[in-house]
């Protein structure tokens, strides 16, 4: 840790100790915020109906109420199992999830025949299945909170999780395209007739748990053994091994699963956890150089050799000038930009836009579809909610006392933020467009469940961070578990 950061860390620790002494759980604040979020979701639903149906049906509040009940259930579970968890996380995520369900229901209304719109059932269509998935995902999160009473217990399964993560990543790549390819990206496991699953969404969590464990064990050798070049400490060649392995895996994902976004996500996730663990800027530099070098290489190979690289080259071309082929390759991105532009500052109002004109509006382009209706102001608010979740996650990482927890929470929070950046940046032509889901908004069970699991872990870590040090709190450490050695230790201060 740098000298400047040491004093900065100390007040935080004292502040945390003070908070712990007061032992305020802030659960009532969470409940009030949750109610506020649900009122917003209900108001959104009512506005949609007023705009699409020209009337607000007496049943407009039902989807919001169902969601509210689901989240209330999770709130009660948190009260019981993680009473000191961060009170802002659940309401913020609930708001995003509710807007997602509301927008998908709004999309169903637009797709439905005019005479069937007023009678659209609560669980019908994309919005209905998203509502059902939300229920499943929240139950999953509650189960995780129940099983994992202490985030440190995850480290016991680190290698299992790491292996599972790699397998999950690899499955779509080795499966034949017909079982794994949707819209040109091989990211899926498709069970014909049953449905499809995006294993990468879960792999991201498993891999991160493994990274965190691995790096906590290796951080000393990775950060201490170094060579100094141009004033920056570079690691020894042999220590580069794992980084190179992950870099290769992410490039393989890029090439064989034809998905730049996922590859960027894994690599960014790993490099940043590595940086947090070692506190070495050199890792960031190496990571950035490797990634951009790899991407440039793929671009050059795509333009000359083609083959597996052609997809990436295509996407880069579209990104550089989407209006070159506005009805052909650039169609999606062009329509996304036009949709956002049509929304303007204030948007057309919920239900006032035309999401059916935008391809993939229920998944990749949902942020643009919502943006047409709530405008720049609404989208900025959504971005702030995302930022809030990420920063609260990082806050939990700062406050938690063990290294594994810090890496886990920090890595997960950053991954969430990076995913939002990759997809929102993609549809707004900030970076090349890649098929990523927008966390909590996009239709799809895999993404929703994986991201709710991520939130469950963040809740658990923040609970561990804010729980009073002495007295054990309402939830004691599991009886009979051996005293933790490395990951149980308080924050170490390491000097280079």
């Amino acid at each position: 840790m740098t000298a400047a950061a040491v004093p900065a860390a100390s007040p935080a620790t004292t502040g945390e100790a003070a908070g712990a002494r007061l032992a305020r759980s802030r659960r009532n604040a969470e409940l009030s915020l949750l109610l506020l979020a649900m009122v917003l979701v209900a108001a959104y639903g009512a506005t949609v109906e007023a705009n699409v149906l020209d009337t607000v049906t007496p049943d407009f509040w039902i989807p919001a109420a169902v969601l509210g009940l689901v989240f209330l259930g999770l709130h009660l579970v948190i009260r019981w199992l993680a009473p000191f968890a961060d009170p802002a996380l659940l309401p913020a995520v609930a708001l995003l999830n509710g807007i997602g369900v509301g927008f998908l229901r709004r999309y169903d209304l637009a797709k439905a025949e005019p005479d069937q719109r007023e009678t659209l059932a609560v669980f019908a269509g994309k919005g209905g299945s998203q509502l059902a998935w939300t229920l499943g995902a929240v139950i999953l999160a509650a189960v995780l909170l129940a099983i994992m009473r202490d985030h440190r217990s995850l480290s016991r399964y680190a290698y299992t999780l790491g292996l599972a993560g790699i397998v999950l990543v690899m499955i779509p790549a080795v499966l034949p395209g017909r079982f794994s390819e949707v819209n040109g990206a091989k990211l899926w496991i498709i069970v014909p007739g049953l449905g499809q699953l995006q294993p990468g969404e879960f792999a991201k969590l498993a891999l991160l748990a493994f990274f965190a464990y691995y790096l906590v064990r290796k951080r000393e050798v990775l950060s201490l053994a170094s060579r100094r070049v141009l004033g920056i400490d570079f690691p020894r060649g042999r220590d580069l091994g794992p980084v190179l392995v992950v870099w290769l895996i992410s490039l393989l994902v890029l090439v064989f699963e034809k998905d730049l976004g996922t590859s960027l996500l894994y690599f960014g996730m790993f490099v940043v956890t590595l940086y947090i663990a070692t506190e070495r800027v050199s890792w960031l530099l190496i990571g950035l150089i490797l990634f951009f070098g790899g991407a440039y290489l793929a671009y050059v190979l795509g333009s000359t050799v083609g083959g597996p690289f052609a997809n990436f080259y295509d996407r880069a071309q579209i990104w550089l000038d989407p209006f070159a082929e506005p009805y052909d390759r650039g169609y999606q991105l062009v329509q996304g930009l036009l949709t956002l532009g049509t929304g303007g500052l204030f948007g057309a109002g919920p239900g006032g836009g035309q999401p059916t004109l935008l391809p993939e509006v229920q998944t990749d382009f949902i942020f643009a579809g919502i943006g047409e209706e709530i405008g720049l102001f609404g989208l900025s608010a959504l971005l702030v909610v995302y930022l809030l979740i990420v920063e609260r996650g990082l806050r939990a990482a700062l406050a938690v006392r063990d290294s594994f927890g810090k890496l886990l929470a920090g890595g997960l929070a950053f991954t969430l933020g990076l995913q939002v950046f990759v997809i929102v940046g993609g549809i707004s032509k900030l970076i090349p467009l890649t098929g990523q889901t927008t966390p909590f908004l996009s239709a799809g069970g895999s993404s929703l469940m994986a991201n709710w699991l991520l939130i469950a872990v963040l809740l658990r870590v923040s609970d561990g961070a804010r729980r009073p040090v002495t007295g054990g709190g309402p939830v004691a450490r599991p009886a009979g578990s051996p005293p933790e050695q490395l990951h149980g230790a308080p924050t170490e201060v390491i000097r280079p």
Partner: protein
Amino acid sequence: MNAPLRRVGVVVMILFGLLFANLNWIQAYKADEYRNSDYNGRVQVAEYERKRGNIEVGGTAYAISKETGGKLRFLRTYPKGEVYAHVLGYKPVNLGETGIERTENDFLAGTSDQLIGNRVKDMFTGEETGGGNVLLTLSKRAQETAYRQLTDNQVGASKGAAIAIDPRTGAVQALVSMPSFDPNPLASHDTTAAQTAYNKLDKDPNRPLANRALAETLPPGSTFKIVVAAAALENGIGQQTSIPAGSSYTAPGAGKPIKNAAPSICPEPQVTLREAVTESCNTGFAQLGVRLGADTIKEKARQFGFEQEDLTVGQLGEGGLPVAASRTGDIQNPDGSTDQAALAQSSIGQNNVRMTPLQGALIAASVANGGSQMRPYLVRQLLAPDRTTSYYTAKPRELRRPVSGQVAGDLRDMMLNVVKEGTGRKAAIDGYTVGGKTGTAQSGPDTPDHGWFIGFALDRNGTPVSAVCVELERAGSGGSAEAARIAGRIMAAAIADAGGR
């Protein structure tokens, strides 16, 4: 580990800041450009949200919008599409609109400034009253007769045009261009199908999309003799004045002599002007033209409306369907002096003389209306969406006065004689006096001649009721007689159903 965590927090904030800045760029700076982009389907959807108004002829709507329940709420349909195609035009989803659909687009769509009151009212009542209605001057019967007679012509011509106007007002009674087309496929919401249909019409060698009545010129042949006769009447020659004729005339410097259509036509060395018009004496008019001079002929043609480039037919103000300029063309030698051979040919409507059917009808109408040429128009009235308020009613006005009343009277007498005992007998209508002039124009060395007829009908009081021009492209032998017959039918129909004014 806290310091890097804090820095990661800052990095995330920077990333989100980039997203925010980029969204500002798209949703604020570029918003207008994207909102109105040609690629933005919302522009069309918005246009189809409001019910487009009708285009009506004689109380029947021939362009109507039907509710579809689809993404584009209304489908534009054209009952009797082919009959009215060149007047109404069409309103496609992705292509450009044409005809009255184009010129009155704002009013039909309900977006014109005139309809602002309606839109404000809609805002308060929450209703969508739709666009305004356009009422045309056409006579249903004359239009349908013109279309049927033209397509069923007895000389087998595949191309041609007919236009009838009310000489007293300039109101267009019929306007047909052959071949026509069905505008319905072009208005299809399936834009690919619409594009395919358009491409097929566009590539058709007969060019069905062209509006031959207004926008295409052909050599007018003998119909142009009315212009020359008008010039002669103004230069001291009377109906009964003898002019040189003969079976053959070779102009100074001409290689080939000008002959008459048949040896029986004006073989005598002198005929009266009246006889020359009645029989359509080429040799007489060629010599008359050479005597009057190129400038006189050109000036007279200009006074009848030749060379006008900005005439439109729609409302009587701005806008409307564009009309091609009719031309007398070049009658000069390279050194600037008059080419006498060309002048002789021009005087019988050959050489470089080119005329639109509308111009032909305007000449006949000016003659019938005592020398006053009324500005032609198609739009009679613009009615509010609720049909209670009228936003425009045509007030006919004179476009120009090519000849004096006296010259017009002489021309009228001579043209009446053409139908009574000359080349235009087939145009006669029971109970009305019909005047006119036939024309046969060479289209090229080896292609059949174009047949023309321009004429008018007077009722028992001598009041003009209709003026017409029929043109049959490459109709060959008998073309002008067939054109005269069709013209008679159209005028008879226009008399039975005068259309709106």
